[in-house]
């Protein structure tokens, strides 16, 4: 057994930060505006998880690493696949609807869908798929090991179902939508089925 005398994370005590009042307003508004309240992370706790994903273009994952700039955009990260029958197209469609209500602010938001089915989804296929919903959306793909590693860090699980006689299969997966702020920190997680209007309200606050 290896023992290191470290501090429990739970023992942390809040220290004032310049963005606290803005963030508190955001979380309170988010709670009021959504029927199913999203999870707000006050301190942007997962910035180190976002290094593999970029907001600027379709991208090959290169394993999780340090946080990268997102060109001052709020980035929504979603793990899905192009043969997804239900939750993926619904979520992408709802995000597109939310962006449509944001006006010019929508240009400061992008979505990156990381495919969890790289055997069937190459980068081009995934890129075409997401841009069917909105031209501003991007795709990410890569080796399954890298995708698994990044998904694990985002709390996302996925697994292929048993193939049927024709070889067709579905993917079981976590359907959460993750919101990363302009500093590359994870700030909010929406459960599947978030209302587009509520999502737009949350994004507006996240941008302000």
């Amino acid at each position, binding site marked *: *057994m290896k023992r290191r005398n470290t501090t429990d994370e739970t023992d942390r*005590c809040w220290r004032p930060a310049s963005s606290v009042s803005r963030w508190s307003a955001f979380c309170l508004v988010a709670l009021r505006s959504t029927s199913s309240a999203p999870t707000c992370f006050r301190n942007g*706790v997962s910035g180190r998880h976002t290094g593999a994903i970029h907001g600027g273009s379709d991208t090959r994952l290169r394993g999780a690493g340090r946080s990268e700039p997102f060109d001052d955009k709020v980035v929504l990260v979603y793990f899905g696949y192009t043969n997804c029958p239900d939750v993926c197209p619904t979520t992408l469609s709802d995000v597109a609807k939310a962006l449509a209500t944001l006006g010019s602010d929508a240009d400061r938001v992008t979505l990156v869908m990381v495919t969890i089915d790289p055997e069937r989804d190459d980068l081009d296929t995934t890129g075409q798929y997401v841009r069917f919903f909105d031209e501003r959306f991007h795709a990410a793909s890569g080796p399954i090991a890298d995708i698994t590693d990044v998904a*694990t860090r985002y709390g996302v699980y996925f697994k292929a179902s048993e193939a049927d006689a024709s070889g067709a299969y579905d993917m079981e997966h976590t359907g959460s939508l993750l919101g990363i702020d302009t500093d590359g920190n994870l700030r909010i997680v929406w459960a599947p089925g978030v209302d587009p209007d509520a999502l737009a309200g949350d994004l507006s606050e996240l941008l302000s």
Partner: protein
Amino acid sequence: MIVAALAFAVVQPIKVLPRVRLAPGFALTDSQGATVTSEDARGAVTLYTFAPSTCTTDCEAINATMAEVQRRVAAEVDLEGIPFQLITIAIDSPTSGELAAAQQRSGADGTRWQWLTADQITLKSVVGSGFGRFFSLASTSGAPSFDPGFVLVDGWGVVRGDYRYQTIATDADKIVSHVGILADEVRYGHGAASVAYEAAHLFLCYP
């Protein structure tokens, strides 16, 4: 706003646990060879710990803490029907038989407290990267080395407590107390009160 914040900080009418980070997604195997995923833990409060299946004397304190937390949460904490479960992740990728034996030795019942494992690549990703716990099967003593500790995860899959070495050496009081705080949030954090709880997350020091 400032007055309200000060009032909150001084009076501390609501205690909350921090939202530390997302717990990792995973698909692990139980002692029967069945797959258990992080999605199976959605909606339940889960206490995780990490140990090799071969660990005996060194892990007595870990197993004793898990057993005490399980017993005391059942007896002392009203989680309003929210399930409470315990998971020990075996870091040495044992066979199903070895995992079952370790589970039995620990006193785990295999349902509310179960042992899970996976191959080393998956475990490095889930335990190492996801839960932030060091472990190595190659040590000078020949026995696996690891950082002991516990992680408390809520039903949203968010880490709410991350307890490291010194907790092992003490007792389960802190963890049981924190499960009670989570239970209060589950019980009272609805509707308008959810705003008060969110304010507590924003303005209070943590217990």
